[in-house]
């Protein structure tokens, strides 16, 4: 009972916080807390970027602003689309001038919790991540950080917002990143039917989903990497595994042979055709990380199709098939992958349970979808 009260309270608080954002509260640098159910560990917020309403407001504007890209057509929201679970509905993200990337942009929703950002974990914080796409030639294609700063500084409506958020109107790339990160820290919700079910509400999910949950934690072997832990209900172990997504199209030995030509430019390597398939290896250069990608979190997974780092699995059903066959063999395939011998009923049940990972309160983020450019 206590729990429901807290949940209701936290839902109210989230609504209140968001309402303040949308309505535009008077300018005061008051610190925001991210409201979470009892027992859930809060996301780590860097000390140098305390969360304030003003930063969130500025960050929201930047998040939806195509002018962060060189020709004004691509914003954060273009690939982390609020109409699609803050994720990428195309297999790979497409940047300025139709430049095709190599990654399916992960969801920005609940990303605040994760230990690292990007599919290869090369950014330790949301702040660090936000800077990457802005200057990436296949994404927002700004020539360099100085150009970004100059462009935003030249837009009159931003001056007052920077002043409210940071005390003065100086535009730096770090402030841009901090504001965007602050906004993303409000894109958080961990209250879905599955959470209620795990907490003891037997009616929270359907019978099929319950069977799916048994499989998820049993025969299907999902939970060792995608486990739901009550203190960290993200369905990820924050580690990197080679499950062989692109392995059949890729020669890892030949690729790694090319990697040393620009060993430090991780952003560039992670987008280079071919080489990007090395995944975590690009960052750590550790043998065991060849072809390994981050275990994505599964909150709202039903909203964030397609799946895998290259968007190669279009539906949840396709994902289950991929795991059922044991992934794609390659010399670095994680030893935890193996054929599962699931029956059609079991596969359907697994899909059903994954649908219960969608947060109950997504409706309150719907107004953000209204900010997307109309077709």
């Amino acid at each position, binding site marked *: 009972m206590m729990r429901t009260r807290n949940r209701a309270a936290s839902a109210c608080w989230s609504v209140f916080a968001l309402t303040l954002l949308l309505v535009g509260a008077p300018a005061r640098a008051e610190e925001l807390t991210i409201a979470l159910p009892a027992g859930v560990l809060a996301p780590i917020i860097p000390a140098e970027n305390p969360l304030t309403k003003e930063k969130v407001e500025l960050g929201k504007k930047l998040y939806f602003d195509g002018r962060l890209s060189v020709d004004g057509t691509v914003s954060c929201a273009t690939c982390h689309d609020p109409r699609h679970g803050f994720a990428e509905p195309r297999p790979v993200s497409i940047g300025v001038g139709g430049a095709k990337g190599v990654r399916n942009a992960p969801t920005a929703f609940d990303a605040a919790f994760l230990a690292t950002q990007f599919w290869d974990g090369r950014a330790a914080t949301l702040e660090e991540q936000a800077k990457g796409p802005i200057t990436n030639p296949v994404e927002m294609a700004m020539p360099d950080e100085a150009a970004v700063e100059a462009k935003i500084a030249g837009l009159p409506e931003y001056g007052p917002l920077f002043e409210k958020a940071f005390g003065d109107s100086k535009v730096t790339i770090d402030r841009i990143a901090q504001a965007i990160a602050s906004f993303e820290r409000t894109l958080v919700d961990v209250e879905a039917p599955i959470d209620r079910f795990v907490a003891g509400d037997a009616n929270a999910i359907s019978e099929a989903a319950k069977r799916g949950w048994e499989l998820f*934690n*049993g*025969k299907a*072997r999902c*939970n*060792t990497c995608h*486990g*739901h*832990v009550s203190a960290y209900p993200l369905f990820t172990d924050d580690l990197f595994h080679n499950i062989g997504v692109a392995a059949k199209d890729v020669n890892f030995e030949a690729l790694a042979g090319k990697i040393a030509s620009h060993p430090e430019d991780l952003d560039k390597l992670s987008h280079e055709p071919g080489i990007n398939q090395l995944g975590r290896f690009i960052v750590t250069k550790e043998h065991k990380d060849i072809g390994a990608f981050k275990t994505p979190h599964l909150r709202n997974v039903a909203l964030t199709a397609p799946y895998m780092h290259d968007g190669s699995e279009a539906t949840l059903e396709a994902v289950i098939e991929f795991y059922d066959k044991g992934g794609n063999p390659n010399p670095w395939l994680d030893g935890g992958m193996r054929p599962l011998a699931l029956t059609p009923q079991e596969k359907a049940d697994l899909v059903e349970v994954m649908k219960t990972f969608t947060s109950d309160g997504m409706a309150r983020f719907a107004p953000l979808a209204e900010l997307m450019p109309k077709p």
Partner: protein
Amino acid sequence: MTARSIAWVAALGAAALAGYAGLAGMRSGEGEPWASRVVYACDQRKAVIVEGVRSDEKLPPAKAQRVADLLTDLMRYCKEEITATIALDETITVEANGRVFHDYVPGGPLPIAKVSFGEPTPREEQIWKAELDKLVAEGDRLFHSDEIGTNGVACAMCHPNASNTHPETYPKFQTQLKKVALLRDMVNWCILNPLEGPELAENDPKMKALEAYILASRRGVALEAGKH
């Protein structure tokens, strides 16, 4: 016995000692390690051996008092046969029920039964041990067999002599299960995963047997629940 009768016995004992010593009037063997004399309490079931005093020798008064105090103290254990030894360095060793207790201090506890009812009989202990050994042996058999799983892998392949099972660390957060688990949860996970077999019900006799074997093999290891 009432306090009065104890005191009376003690007094009699002490008087007897004093009297005997007076009659004997011999040279003291005090300090000679080969010498010792025995003093009995009136029930003939409590004895104190005093080292360094010859058997025909009078006890010096202080030592005599010590002997008397000790006999009185041991008389608490009415039905037991107890022998105490006061060594040259004044330490007291007590022997009772076939067990030896060192550095005894009169008035202190002696972990022997003051009464004998309620204690298991040797026969009972034998039966209990036989039953436990039977379950442990069954667990040993299952642990080493290929019948728990379907792929020929036996628990003993990764856990010879049940090594590396660490049952004393449960409950703990088990990273493969992503939750806090007990030993049998992990046993079931191992059956399902490396052994590719069907999970056992928690009250399945096979599960109990496996647990019994694993726990028996770690007997004496300190409990460290939560240690990863």
